[in-house]
């Protein structure tokens, strides 16, 4: 059985992993970074609230997290520090992030490093003032740490700065600086600087000998880059064929899918999983612009209608572009492909997962769960013959 997965974010990766594990021959096509590459390191099933605890995990999610490596998932929810000053609950986290839950009531040092994107004093102030810290008596204090070599390191991109600590000598030196400036603190909270390789984080943690972790990543920070590295390793180990290409068109029949690519030969498969992301990732796009007949559509040619709030989303009857003042900006997040469960509505061999699906929460774990569900449905489809 031959399957094509389009998209290599959390949904596509989970689908490809599950399919390959189930014995299918999988080709994963992807082009450019998507929403998962921009994620913050927090793992949610549904958007978080201060009061409702994050949802309990299912075994599929745990199995995927274990296979992927670099994700810490359950059984209990964790608590993550964000730059906005919230200490927010999450179902899980990228392992590099500091879990505050076991540190309730403790004194936590915030590494004060002269990076432009980072203001340890204000971050510490905001975190100390957050409801959870106030409730549990947890304190955050900025502690000066020398971590830069040369003024240029102040403004280089976050990923580039984090990558410096992949060099053992830099990692050791950073750990040493942290170790010697601690003053009776119980843990270290640092920026997203702990290298891009899992081994760098482990090296620094082992040397510091205190709980140590990062605050959440901003979009384009190291959290997304680490996911991509882990993904590539996982898929290579599963012998998933990865094709870096852009899809130009998708044609579906009852038992077959044909995926046309830009400047590469087309792919034929028994079924396909569509995990191209939503508007953020570019899987859905606003065509045209202000002053032209415009609508939201898939990023390649395919006759799949989009759906919004249970209705088919059509191009509005104007030659002058969609007015989001009338529709509301949140339309951009609710629109997507309609599915019956995991199968694309009205299709037999096409399945969808992640942000491209209408009316699903735009969260990482939901993407994983729907990716696995799509893969399971594709494998179980009675129209398909088992592998070999």
């Amino acid at each position, binding site marked *: 059985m031959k399957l094509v997965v389009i998209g290599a974010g959390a949904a596509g990766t989970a689908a490809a992993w599950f399919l390959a594990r189930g014995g299918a021959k999988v080709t994963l096509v992807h082009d450019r970074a998507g929403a998962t590459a921009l994620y913050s390191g927090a793992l949610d099933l549904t958007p978080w609230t201060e009061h409702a605890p994050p949802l309990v995990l299912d075994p599929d999610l745990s199995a995927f997290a274990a296979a992927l490596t670099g994700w810490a998932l359950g059984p209990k929810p964790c608590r993550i520090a964000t730059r*906005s000053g919230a200490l927010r609950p999450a179902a899980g986290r990228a392992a590099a992030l500091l879990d505050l839950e076991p540190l309730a009531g403790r004194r936590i040092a915030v590494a004060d490093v002269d990076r*432009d994107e980072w203001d340890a004093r204000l971050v510490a*102030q905001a975190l100390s003032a957050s409801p959870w810290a106030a409730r549990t008596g947890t304190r955050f204090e900025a502690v000066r740490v020398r971590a830069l070599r040369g003024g240029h390191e102040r403004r280089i991109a976050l990923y580039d700065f984090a990558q410096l600590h992949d060099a053992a000598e830099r990692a050791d030196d950073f750990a040493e600086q942290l170790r010697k400036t601690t003053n009776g603190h119980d843990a270290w909270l640092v920026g997203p600087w702990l290298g891009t390789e899992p081994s760098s984080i482990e090296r620094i943690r082992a040397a510091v000998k205190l709980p140590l972790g990062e605050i*959440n990543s901003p979009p384009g920070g190291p959290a997304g880059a680490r996911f991509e590295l882990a993904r590539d390793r996982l898929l290579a180990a599963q012998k998933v064929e990865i094709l870096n290409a852009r899809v130009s068109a998708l044609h579906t029949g009852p038992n077959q899918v044909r995926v046309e690519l830009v400047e590469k030969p087309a792919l034929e498969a028994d079924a396909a999983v569509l995990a191209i992301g939503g508007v953020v990732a570019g899987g859905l796009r606003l065509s045209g612009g202000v002053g032209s007949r415009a609508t939201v559509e898939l990023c390649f040619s395919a006759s799949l209608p989009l759906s919004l709030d249970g209705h088919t989303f059509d191009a509005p009857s104007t030659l*002058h572009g969609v007015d989001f003042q009338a529709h509301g900006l949140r339309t*951009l997040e609710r629109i997507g492909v309609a599915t019956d469960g995991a199968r694309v509505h009205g299709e037999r061999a096409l399945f969808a997962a992640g942000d491209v699906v209408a009316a699903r929460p735009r969260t990482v774990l939901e993407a994983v769960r729907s990716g696995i569900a799509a893969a399971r449905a594709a494998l179980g489809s009675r129209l398909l013959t088992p592998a070999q």
Partner: protein
Amino acid sequence: MPAETRPDVDVVVIGGGVNGTGVARDCALRGLKVALFERNDIAFGASGNSSGMIHGGPRYLSYDPDVTHTSCLDSGHIQRIAPHLLFRIPFLVPVFQRSLLATKIALTGYDAFFALYDKYQPLKRGKSHVLLAGDEIRRLEPGLIGEAAGGVTFDEWGIDGVRLCVGSLIDALEHGATARVHCTVTEIVRGESGKVTGVRWRDRFTGEAGTTTARAVVNATGAWSPITASLGGVEPRAARIRPGKGIHVYLDRRLTNYAIATTAIDGRQVFLLPWQNTSVLGTTDDDFYGDLDDVVATGDEVRYLFQAIERVFPSIRAARAIGTWGGVRPTLYAWGVNEDALSREHEIVDHAAHGADGLYSMTGGKLASYRIFAEEMTDVLAGRLGNQAPRRTHVAPLPGGDEQVDPMHLVQEGGMEAVTATRLEYRHGGRSLRVLERMLQNPREAAVVCACEPVTEAEIRYVVVNELAVTVDDVSRRTRLGLGACGGMRCALRCGHIVADATGRSPGEGARMALEFMERAARRRACAIGPEQARQEALGLALLRSEVGVERDDEAS
């Protein structure tokens, strides 16, 4: 009534736009004691939402050349008192191929017209017009569609209206004035004879209220004028204006070298203007009946402008709109006239005629003539109060206008990047050295908080301490923080924490201000979203949800 006591001030000015701050400055420079009250923020209304030009008024040339003369002369004055705030905007008026005769008539007409305007250009250091052939136009602006038969250029000056208002107000404060921002006047108090004796006010943030007594009250509230007049028991119609809403769309970069003027479907003139580090598309003029505290451009207005420009500059369709401005002009009242045909003149209404001696309303006017209008108003006040001090607002420099600073000096001393230094120097002129001083005292403040503009922490703290900014929105208005393509996604929350820290408020309060700012800005973008910006909007929503969660008012516990 108690016996005659000395009033708190000579003059109360209501309104922190270009007229109000202009009058406050003029009064202060002449030694009058003045207090200014602004309901929202400095330059919140039309002054901060204009096309951003100090133009010489070529449109008056044919029927009232005196107005053109005065406008050009005053443009020259403003260049002298605030050289850092002005930037040259060369205009291009393309003439498209029609019949041979019609084209020739159009070109000859423009040529003759602007030859006349050239006589006034030296008053404002403007350049003479140039008559261009079709291929020259195409070379200068390759984005114009190919049929241009020729055209003319003429020269104008751009300005940041907010910086102008802030400069005027700071100068007033430094000459003894006082000002309260986000403080609304709740009543214009009148004595038994009907004479105005002062104002009652209430701070809209703290709830603090009080009375300030004065010998005269100036209503400089622009489109709010009739409402303000009614606070003194005067009929709103006594200070009536014809409120004309004008919107602008701003695009993420400078798309053209020249400002391009063209006509909209209804024959009105509209333009695409390279302005600071953006392009501005404007403007509309429609009667407005809505809430003046919340003027938002609509999709129809945006599309009207795009439609007009795309006829001559088609690639505008692919351009990325990152925001809109809406403001309401306080045009002089007239019934039965099209918006565009309304006079742009100004008038002082002396409400003694309505029984309220000592109350004056400033109606009409435009950004380019604010200084003269303020001077005329101050002349009336000075006459009333027996003040004989000379007029000085055309020679005394505005803050930062007295000292030239080379941005490269800021680069070398403060370790700023060249763009950061150039933008800082533009906004603050010589006062950029004071921002630099903050950085040298605390090198951490050199951190670039908003990378789009860019804006440093030192500048944020500077405008909070020195320019009466108390919210993220206020900081944004003064520095253009968060007005780039990312809509404050990367900087607003941090700016909120900095503003809260600098004003002794809690970090939670800082985050709340930041969210308010982002929500307000998003509402102003929603009517102009194109493909590129749509992705950015979705990302911004996702990021906010990740940082702040689905409930925002969960800080109660």
